């Protein structure tokens, strides 16, 4: 199986490891991530305004490129996934945005949300299957107590993201279990880390992350796992628990960590 792959700008830079581990793991699991030839930054946040068209176009281009190749579009970064999926929903269901974006793009055939956007975790859950993943684990992470940190972008708004139960998600816990580790369920796992606010309001972001890490530590998590570079950055600021990308854990369990970077 070959997927179109949208890495995103942070994965080209500060979060290279998130990307490299993902590619190595995909190879180990027998599917291919084919990076889109020309992609532009998704913008990091989804433009909420109904009249914002231009800022949605980079996503539309990526979605249409995947459509041309007849492939599903995979993202690893929570933010890219979030933006792509929401823009895709607009293109499928919001007539005004669909018309205006297509008028601007002047494509041969208009893009109407045909591409399926998948997060790497969804590929693991829905295409590979966690049972199958479990079989491929060569060095299980036995004994490690890991707290899943979802944040907002993967889950909300749930009617569009349709990723998991927005209040009581399980995909990362199932993932952790498949790797042989013990998931730690704690109530703040879907609370916001502060997001972009950490640029100007550092204390506010840190206080939010403190709540999250305190809660996780209280339930005896030894580390947190996330899919988002910004979440990781913010959580690291509170400094109470180590934070790793889920792809890193995966690479470790699949025995491809060494040499991935």
């Amino acid at each position: 199986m070959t997927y179109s792959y949208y890495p995103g700008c942070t994965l080209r830079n500060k979060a290279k490891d998130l990307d490299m581990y993902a590619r190595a793991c995909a190879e180990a699991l027998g599917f291919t991530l084919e990076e889109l030839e020309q992609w532009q930054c998704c913008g990091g946040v989804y433009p909420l305004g109904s009249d914002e068209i231009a800022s949605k176009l980079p996503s539309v281009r990526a979605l249409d490129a995947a459509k041309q190749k007849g492939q599903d579009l995979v993202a690893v970064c929570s933010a890219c996934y979030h933006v792509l999926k929401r823009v895709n929903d607009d293109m499928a269901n919001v007539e005004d945005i669909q018309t205006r974006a297509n008028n601007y793009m002047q494509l041969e055939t208009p893009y109407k949300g045909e591409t399926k956007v998948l997060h790497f975790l969804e590929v693991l859950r829905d295409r590979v299957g966690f049972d199958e993943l479990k079989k491929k684990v060569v060095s299980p992470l036995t004994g490690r107590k890991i707290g899943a940190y979802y944040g907002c972008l993967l889950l909300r708004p749930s009617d569009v993201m349709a990723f998991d139960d927005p209040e009581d998600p399980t995909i990362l816990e199932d993932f952790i279990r498949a790797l042989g580790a013990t998931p730690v369920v704690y109530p703040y796992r879907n609370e916001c880390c502060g997001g972009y606010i950490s640029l100007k309001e550092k204390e506010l972001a840190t206080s939010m992350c403190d709540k999250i890490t305190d809660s996780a530590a209280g339930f005896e998590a030894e580390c947190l796992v996330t899919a988002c570079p910004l979440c990781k950055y913010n959580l690291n600021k509170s400094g109470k628990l180590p934070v790793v990308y889920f792809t890193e854990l995966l690479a470790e369990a699949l025995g491809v960590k060494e040499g991935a970077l």
Partner: protein
Amino acid sequence: MNKQAELIKEISGVNPLKCMKCGKCSASCPSYNEMDIKPHQFVSYVQNEDIEALTASKSLYKCLSCFACVERCPRGVKPGKLIDAARQVVIRQRGQEYLSPDEVPELLDEETPQQLLMSAFRKYRR
């Protein structure tokens, strides 16, 4: 009819009349204590066309767009979209950007991901 109120409703796609004033948005908001105008009030400010106060509010820059209020609202009002639209109305005016490129370098550290910069520019600038 207040033009700015109409604009906010249009940009956000929110119908404030759907609100039943239960307060679940404010109960869910992680930035609640930082805000001068609270999430459940966004709706009434727009409804009462008190846009001047709303656009002057620091809440515009405290909302995380985390969508907890949107997710949990029992009436589908989407207060988070409303405040984002109010912010749009402000930053689209000349000279109203909340982040100037000049102040950026001192806000950065070694680990700052590109994503943070991109997001902040999107949220704070035209």
